[in-house]
């Protein structure tokens, strides 16, 4: 019983959930108020993208799913929609960056930026599929652009946090 508890506590996804909760609280308070160009910055999407960049496509997809599910809990949109989109974003981030021969800081920024933009376009498509109307407008492009820029700037520190949270328990010791 105790061993199982220690295993759960040591699990990297448990750490990710805790980090995700902190990011979610920032998302619903600070970044909900700060809206440059009228766009709500998506720090949860950044967390999903950075997870993929830090650990690769498979872990990125699972981490993105967890982060998206946390985000779904506070949104009025269908549960699981953000989880699916963020899982794709996490997967794409890891997959796209696996083609980079020698990874540099700017290649990571660029990848985070592009996958964030893709995520912000996929979200309204998902909303439309699940029945929400008037969401797929040209405003989506503005939102995607602003979010992509913000996520590019902050991708490095968030990736550092993701690398720490998603390291294997053996590496942690």
């Amino acid at each position, binding site marked *: 019983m105790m061993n199982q508890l220690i295993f759960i506590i040591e699990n990297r996804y448990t750490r990710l959930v805790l980090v995700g909760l902190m990011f979610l609280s920032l998302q619903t*308070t600070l970044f909900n*108020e700060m809206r440059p160009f009228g766009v*709500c910055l998506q720090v949860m999407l950044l967390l999903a993208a950075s997870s993929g960049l830090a650990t690769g496509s498979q872990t990125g997809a699972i981490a993105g799913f967890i982060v998206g599910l946390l985000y779904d809990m506070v*949104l009025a*949109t269908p549960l*699981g929609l953000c989880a*699916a989109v963020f899982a794709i974003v996490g997967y794409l981030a890891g997959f796209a960056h696996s083609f980079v021969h020698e990874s540099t800081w700017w290649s990571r920024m660029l990848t985070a930026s592009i996958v964030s933009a893709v995520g912000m376009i996929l979200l309204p498509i998902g909303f439309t599929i699940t029945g929400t109307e008037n969401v797929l407008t040209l405003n989506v492009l503005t939102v995607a652009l602003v979010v992509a820029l913000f996520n590019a700037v902050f991708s490095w520190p968030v990736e550092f946090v993701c690398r720490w949270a998603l390291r294997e328990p053996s590496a942690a010791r």
Partner: protein
Amino acid sequence: MAGYSFTRRRAILLLSLTSVILITMDLRGSSIVNFARSSFGVVFRPIESASRVLTRPIQNTWHGITHYNSVVDENRRLKDLVAYNEGATISAIASVREAQELLALNGLPTLAGISSCTAQVVGSSPSNYSQTVEINRGTECGIKVGMPVLNAAGMIGKVTDVYKKRSVVMLMTDPGYSLAVKVVNAPPTTTTTVVGEGTSDSSSTTSTSTTTTTIKVTTTTGIPGFTPGATIAPTVTTVSPTGVTSPPGSVGPNKPGQSTKSPITVPAGIDLPLKETGALEGRGLSKAPVVRFVENQVRFGDVKVGSPVISAGGATSLAPPDVVIGTISRVIKRTGTLGPLLEVELAADFDYLNFVRVLLYQPSTERPVQP
């Protein structure tokens, strides 16, 4: 490599399946999903509250940098508005009281007879695609899904999710919002040039004439002192020096061959505001909501910018009648029988929502049937 690929495919398949199952459960209104969200809220609220306290200085700095000029302008504008409204409020209160009295006398439902629950907005949606706010009252206050939410200015939305101590309110700007509304158009008026006395009879003496404009008051109810504003019609009474008073509403007998250019405004028919129903739909944060399905009727005339929009009410409507929503800001004319598309400037300012009132109103179709 094959094993790794298999594991990855399996993981992706599992994630996709889980997402689809969750979305399906939520769209079908599963109680498990509601319970999960409610439980998560209990765990997450303290973290969010702590985060709100810690990040408030940063938020204030941000608002100070980005909104300083607009706040100064807003303050100036509001001071003017307060001064302007002070006088108008007194007469408005009197009118509302009279209207409610009249409705009550006729056995019609009024807003005064509906219980309400006052709540405070504690958070808004962090999404770019849905416009919701969270309020700090829930089922313990009697709030149910679908109830209308108002602030001091007018309607702001409806309750979409209710938990014990909090509720989620879908704002009227949300693309998923729809409500039956009435557009109150001003009655059409026609200006008629009436041929009256052009030249008076020649006289060597100087005559003095007095023209007085009086307001004809028509009392339609037995309420003491009640004067419905809609029936006020200006009439002109001319008192001649001889003491003969012409009948109210006329400007003298017509005489062929004599012309005058005295324009008077004659109300077309009964001077009551005309109402036409339509459906108000939200279009997202960046666009004003629109009213559709307003019929192109001759009697209703062209919808004017500035015409008030109020809730229509009705047996199936989730909002009671005559709740203020806003005014028409733009009329988009369409060809055929589609009728005009009316953009609405909402009365409530959604950027500064604080205290709101949830009307504990349920339409007759939603009320439990008495045994």
